[in-house]
């Protein structure tokens, strides 16, 4: 079976339905593919070939009875921050190296009901903190477009694996850009849903008011299919919102005539690479040619404050969430002391990597007596202003478009010793999480041979607009059809 690694979900679904091949055959081909490419890109922390084959066999039984949905029998990959019952879930941290969840995350329950075939658990920046995947405690994942470069983070393994043809889709989590940035760096579609759309039950918490799970896929249609499957109300997540879930693929007709699209000028930040700027300007012209009414003078004036707001709020929430790793109930525990406080401090010293410690300390500081008002409370108030600016903009525009990142994928090691430079990579994606709105990154060309992503944003619960615009743009280009050539 040739070129199976290039299929989209829609294509594979049609072929499964017509019995051109079985899920067992498709899954077998993807297991072979993983074997071939994995040592080049190192996208997976845990491979689950045996589970995948069992799930594929079950999917084939369903297909034989014509019980087939869009994801039935389709190989996918799950970021290792999402709990999978009985399958090691590490968050790419020594702290959870041997943690085996006793339950499934809500999204896994939904995917299993839809007939998922799970190929493995994807590498990531430790506890989802990072923009390059170099903060994994195990090994860094490489970008399939150039293995000397990073895939982006924190969902770098989820992106690299799909870009390299190890699966047809994957799940990631996005707290400040962790889906959209790697999607942009690896030429994929990546969606950060509206806060509250997808249940966080079973997602290991980083910053609870910002975290959302979302899909990576090769096309907008595929991303919409995965999103339709994982979205929905769940009473086990008290921030889950009970909003009607449509079949999002119904609205993909390529017609965006008359849609009002704003281009917020603040997103074209100082230091943005000229090649990225060029690709985004070309993409905006393209949207105009498709009939959208583009306003290049849109403005979200508080955008420059988003970075500071984010790096106060996210570490503050993280410092509270990660307090649970104390060496008592699960995870790593320092063995060589009889003193409780020493055990706790050493457990966290050896269990966490440098970036996680840095953020816990930053958050602890921002929440500590004497600094709470100046940092945490101030950031929460500026958050309100950022939210209001988006609300005002969406009274005028159906969507906003901007670059996903100011740069293409950078070289491994380039920003590792300078946390502030690393944080600046997320400057165009952070405001979206702060405001809780949905955004998608779609392939929008290449600069220096590396992919560039176009980011589309919409008002809360209006993912439909993202898919509609994304699909129309995608149909007018062939960026999404480009595949990396790996040295195999």
């Amino acid at each position: 079976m040739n070129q199976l690694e290039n299929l989209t979900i829609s294509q594979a679904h049609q072929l499964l339905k017509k019995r051109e091949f079985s899920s067992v055959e498709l899954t077998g081909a993807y297991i072979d593919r993983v074997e071939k490419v994995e040592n080049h890109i190192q996208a997976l922390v845990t491979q689950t070939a045996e589970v995948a084959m069992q799930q594929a066999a079950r999917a084939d039984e369903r297909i034989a009875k014509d019980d087939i949905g869009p994801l039935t029998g389709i190989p996918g990959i799950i970021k290792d921050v999402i709990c999978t019952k009985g399958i090691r879930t590490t968050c790419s941290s020594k702290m959870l190296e041997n943690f085996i969840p006793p339950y499934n995350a809500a999204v896994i329950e939904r995917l299993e009901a839809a007939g998922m075939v799970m190929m493995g658990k994807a590498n990531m920046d430790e506890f989802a903190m990072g923009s390059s995947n170099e903060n994994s405690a195990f090994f860094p994942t490489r970008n399939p477009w150039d293995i000397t470069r990073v895939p982006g983070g924190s969902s770098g393994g989820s992106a690299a694996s799909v870009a390299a043809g190890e699966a047809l889709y994957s799940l990631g989590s996005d707290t400040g850009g962790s889906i959209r940035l790697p999607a942009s760096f690896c030429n994929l579609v990546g969606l950060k849903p509206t806060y509250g759309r997808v249940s966080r039950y079973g997602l290991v918490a980083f910053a609870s008011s910002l975290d959302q799970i979302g899909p990576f896929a090769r096309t907008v249609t595929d991303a919409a299919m995965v999103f339709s499957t994982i979205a929905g109300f769940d009473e086990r997540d008290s921030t889950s919102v009970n909003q009607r879930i449509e079949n999002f693929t119904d609205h993909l007709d390529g017609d965006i005539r008359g849609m009002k699209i704003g281009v917020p000028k603040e997103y074209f930040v100082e230091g943005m690479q000229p090649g990225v700027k060029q690709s985004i300007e070309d993409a905006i012209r393209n949207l105009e040619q498709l009939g959208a009414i583009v306003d290049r003078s849109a403005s979200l004036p508080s955008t420059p404050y988003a970075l500071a707001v984010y790096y106060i709020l996210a570490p503050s929430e993280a410092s509270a969430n990660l307090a649970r790793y104390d060496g008592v109930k699960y995870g790593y525990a320092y063995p060589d002391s009889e003193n409780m406080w020493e055990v706790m401090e050493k457990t966290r010293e050896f269990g966490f990597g440098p970036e996680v410690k840095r953020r816990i300390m930053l958050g602890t500081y921002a929440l500590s007596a004497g600094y709470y008002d100046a940092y945490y409370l101030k950031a929460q108030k500026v958050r309100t202003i950022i939210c209001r600016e988006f609300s005002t903009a969406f009274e005028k525009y159906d969507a906003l478009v901007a670059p996903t990142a100011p740069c293409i994928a950078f070289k491994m090691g380039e920003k590792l010793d300078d946390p502030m430079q690393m944080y600046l990579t997320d400057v165009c994606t952070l405001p979206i999480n702060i405001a809780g709105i949905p955004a998608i990154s779609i392939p929008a060309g290449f600069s220096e041979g590396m992919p560039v992503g176009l980011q589309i944003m919409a008002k809360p619960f209006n993912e439909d607009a993202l898919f509609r615009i994304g699909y129309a743009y995608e149909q007018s280009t062939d960026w999404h059809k480009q595949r990396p050539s790996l040295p195999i």
Partner: protein
Amino acid sequence: MKLNREEVLHIARLARVGITEEEIDKFSRQLSDILENFEVLSQVDTDGIPPTAQPNMLHTIIKEDRANPSLGREQALANAPAREGEFFKIRPVLEK
């Protein structure tokens, strides 16, 4: 805002994170650099602006208090670093 050695040690203590000599210097430098970038927020007028703890909070979610199946004892203890019988085993909290 510059963080000195004592402040870094104090924060590490509050967070119960052990850090090495080398990390004290590194974190002092890096955290100071990051905090300096936060100073832009003082330019924003937030008089009369309420804080936002999380977006899209439409209403307080209240659910019925009813018993549901939960993890069994063995499952709950399965990942314990140390156990004794039916208990998590930890070091003494109160010393003699």
